[in-house]
């Protein structure tokens, strides 16, 4: 069980959240210009690090807003979270 720090609602049980995978993915600015390989990359290729990961969570059973969490994929330690457009405030590891 993980406590996920919603930037609006505070720490809540992970069952209230929906996971959205890797953060900071940007929709192609000019979709028509993409090659098949670029489309495959955009749709299917994601980082899968063993360590710190910036990922998206949505507070589905709360404020229903999306935000970014910095979480360790081995220890499940959470280093911080931030709203879209903000940078995360983290302590040095």
């Amino acid at each position, binding site marked *: *069980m993980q406590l996920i720090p919603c930037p609006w609602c505070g720490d809540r049980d992970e069952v209230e959240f929906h996971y959205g995978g890797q953060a900071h993915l940007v929709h192609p600015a000019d979709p028509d210009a993409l090659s098949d390989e670029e489309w495959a990359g955009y749709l299917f*290729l994601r980082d899968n690090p063993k360590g710190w990961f910036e990922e998206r969570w949505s507070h589905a059973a709360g404020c229903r807003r999306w935000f970014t969490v910095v979480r360790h994929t*081995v220890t499940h330690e959470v280093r911080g979270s931030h709203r879209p457009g903000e940078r995360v405030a983290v302590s040095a590891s």
Partner: protein
Amino acid sequence: MAYAESPEHPAGLWRNPDPRRTYDVVIVGAGGHGLATAYYLARNHGITNVAVLERGWLAGGNMARNTAIIRSNYLWDESAALYDHALRLWEGLSEELDYDILFSQRGVLNLAHSLQDVRDSVRRVEANRLQGVDAEWLTPEQVKEFCPVVNVSQDARYPVLGATLQRRAGIAKHDHVAWAYARAADALGVDLIQNCEVTGITVRGDRVTGVETSRGPIAAGRVALAAAGHSSLLAGMAGLRLPIQSHPLQALVSELLEPVHPCVVMSNAVHVYVSQAHKGELVLGAGVDQYNSYGQRGGFHVIRQQMAAALELFPAFARARVLRTWGGVVDVSPDASPIVGLTPVDGLYLNCGWGTGGFKATPGAGWVYAHTIAHDRPHPLNEPYTLERFTTGALIDEHGAAAVAH
């Protein structure tokens, strides 16, 4: 229902050699797939200058963490062909390897709890029959007859409206499977090397030349990855980015019980899968945790959901005690189907993305992967399972038959 006695284990099943400096083929990962691949490389293709490298101990990863279920009732032709090839190999494996793997074809029920479940299930039965895979549709009454311990009351929150049955499906003893393959591969000259972590993959130009390990560099003409859960990290060492995400998958067992559960029951809708191990434990599988993790453990709420689902289907289990829980790390691909084949690096081969279905495929995966490595081209059965399908769009979408939500 017959519960076989476990065979005595010989004192030494395989040698424990130091790694040589060079091999024709290095397989990374001594789980079921790696060991089966090594065995079929030697037996089917005469390639015996092979090392299987394992960073921990042999078959101590997902091979020791699965629920041992074997079936081949997938939806798409590509999947049914691959998994049924595996099932046919399972059927002769104890004799082939001269070691009892306790393969028990006790039948697998996949329950339907909604009208759409019923339609999808009947469709799958018909598809399986066209593919030559045995499949039947059972009414709730027939489900009760086949597995008396299942609650088929129509007053349940998610009533059982019927089930598919594959009679040839069942369970095997996963440890025995690994040891049997390991012993047979070793006898054919394969070096099984434990406590040997791969820390790098060396590539010259477009061609793999070997691996760096915690026990020194090892040169190899071909390098085959078979390290479920960690494939992204390994492939990254060769500069490849895979469409793979790693997730925890949990299961648990109860204390030992008298024989009460004669088959395997799976339910996608309420989400649990249950069988009774040869020794008597109830083995309960859950879904994957939603987040990426390499932690080999998951969230307690997933276990809670799994147990709630189990009690809905099996009220008699309410007083069974949990003996232990565990988690593995599974490679999940975007279409819930594996990636088995070549990579953009010559001589580097990929076997990953089995998600929650790797154990049942073990002999078939080893068979086709060995062929792929030996001939530098896929076996007809794994031809569709390319890395390129995520670019071409020729996906094999098996989410509906994967039995675990991911």
